[in-house]
């Protein structure tokens, strides 16, 4: 019996190895090529868009790389990438150093701060949010809410939502958790935890907000697609593709594709908000 089972398993493993070996790559002929590099937040959008774009234009080959917004901007300014991805606006220093850089907003991104629906708290300032997530404010009554101790719920290290939240709210370099904060592995898990815990406060992407949790106004502005698009909601940002000078040729074709209805559907599928 025992040997039989081992035999079967070994067979399965060999089969899988065989399949792995057979699935190799094939070479390519003469092609127009485009290099896209930069923000890891934009990377999934750029990668899916590139995939679709290459399906439609078999003569085009697009390579999408990460590296971070700063790297992307630097690479496009120096000409080592055709398009730079950035999850922030150009800094003043970058604008003066490279005045010919042209950013195209391709998506918007906003994070809602949520509490249990029974929480009477409705409005926080950005500073209060910062203090709560840093563990300085420990009870909702300190910010005009009910007398409940606060349980902070955050995302795990490496999460894009977490790094966006830290960048936009906590200011760079400051870690967004008191040591007691719970870490949940997904937007859905944070929402479920907040929905089930009347002491909890957490943050999730706008797309995940529903009636099981209550999204707070920040600095008096409620999070919505409209307020994020307009930039009025404070915990929001736009994602950019940047070219050196006006986008032309293949660069323009690709950015136009991302801004087209089909491209914007990819943006939505990746969990962001469309801009056109």
């Amino acid at each position: 019996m025992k040997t039989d089972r081992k035999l079967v398993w070994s067979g399965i493993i060999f089969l899988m190895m065989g399949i792995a070996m057979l699935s190799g790559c094939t070479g390519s002929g003469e092609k127009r090529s485009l290099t896209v590099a930069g923000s890891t937040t934009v990377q999934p959008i750029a990668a899916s868009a590139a995939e679709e774009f290459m399906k439609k234009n078999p003569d085009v080959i697009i390579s999408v790389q990460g590296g971070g917004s700063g790297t992307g901007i630097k690479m496009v300014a120096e000409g080592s990438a055709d398009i730079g991805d950035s999850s922030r606006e150009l800094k003043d220093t970058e604008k003066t150093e490279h005045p010919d850089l042209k950013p195209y907003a391709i998506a918007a991104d906003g994070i809602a701060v949520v509490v249990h629906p029974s929480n009477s708290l409705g409005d926080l300032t950005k500073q209060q949010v910062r203090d709560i997530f840093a563990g300085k404010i420990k009870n909702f009554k300190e910010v005009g809410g009910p007398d409940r101790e606060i349980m902070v719920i955050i995302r795990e290290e490496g999460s894009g939502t977490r790094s966006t939240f830290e960048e936009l709210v906590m200011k760079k370099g400051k870690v967004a958790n008191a040591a007691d904060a719970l870490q949940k592995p997904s937007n859905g898990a944070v929402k479920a935890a907040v929905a089930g815990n009347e002491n909890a406060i957490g943050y999730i992407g706008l797309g995940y907000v529903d009636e099981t949790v209550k999204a707070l106004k920040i600095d008096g502005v409620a999070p919505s697609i409209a307020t994020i698009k307009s930039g009025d909601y404070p915990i929001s940002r736009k994602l950019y593709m940047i070219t050196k000078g006006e986008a032309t040729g293949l660069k323009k074709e690709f950015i136009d594709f991302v801004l087209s209805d089909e491209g914007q559907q990819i943006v939505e599928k990746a969990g962001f908000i469309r801009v056109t």
Partner: protein
Amino acid sequence: MVKGVSINSENVVRGALLLFAMTAVLILSLIFVFLLREGLPLFAKVSPIDFIFGTRWEPSKGVFGAFNFIAGSILVTAGGLIIAIPLGLSCAIFLSEVAPRWARNMVRPAIELLAGIPSIVYAAIAVAVLIPFVQYDLGNLIRGEVFRVGEGIFAVSLTLAIMVLPIIISVSLDSMESVPRAFKEGSFALGSTQWQTIRRITLPTALPGIVAGSILGMGRLVGETIVVILVYGNAKHITSTLFGAKSTGETLTAAILLEMSYVPVGSTWHSALFSLGIILLITVFILSLISNYLLSKSRVKL
């Protein structure tokens, strides 16, 4: 098939089987080599002492102290066993020494069924039922107001205990049932009561098997991932209370699973996660060696 060939083909089959059997060993050693290759580069940047005893884990700053995770793994494993061993042992004693045949016939299949339930099911039930119960009901009962959170060492220990109970019961039961009848009959003949026989004869004879079962369970708990991710809270501190926000923590397995999808391959962070894996593998390896040793000892005795 021609008769004369069958001897040769038998050899071929034997050789093939040997090859397949060796692949299991080969894969195990490949896993170990791979873990070492991926994990060891960490120690060029972080000293092993800082890695094992450091309590700060901030990958973005290049600080990797795994002590919180190690402590978390030890605590949830201990918590699960503290609940499961007395419960499992009493259940095994009842089934093997006291229970009438019909009760045994009913309970045994149920226990085996329990062992087959995937841990995500236990985790889901804990999230839906146990966590709110601990936060609201136990909070009001113990503290007079709700706890800040229901996740934590209490909920996770209870869930893990239920999960590991079938292992402990069935291994203990097996080793108690294989205590020779003559031992017990001799004890009864000398005028011992049933309880005296259980305590002085059956339990000591079956002890190595019982310990081996517990260690087997311990191995399962150390490696358990989904339950601890969903029920332990993944807070980056060391558990210091039984309930409330300070009772949460994070284990080695949880840290690996939560962060693995984000790490750039080849980074220090990447090898730090693999080093957590090395700690886990070594722990489970040692536990299973001890368990095998004790099981073989209990067989020799019979």
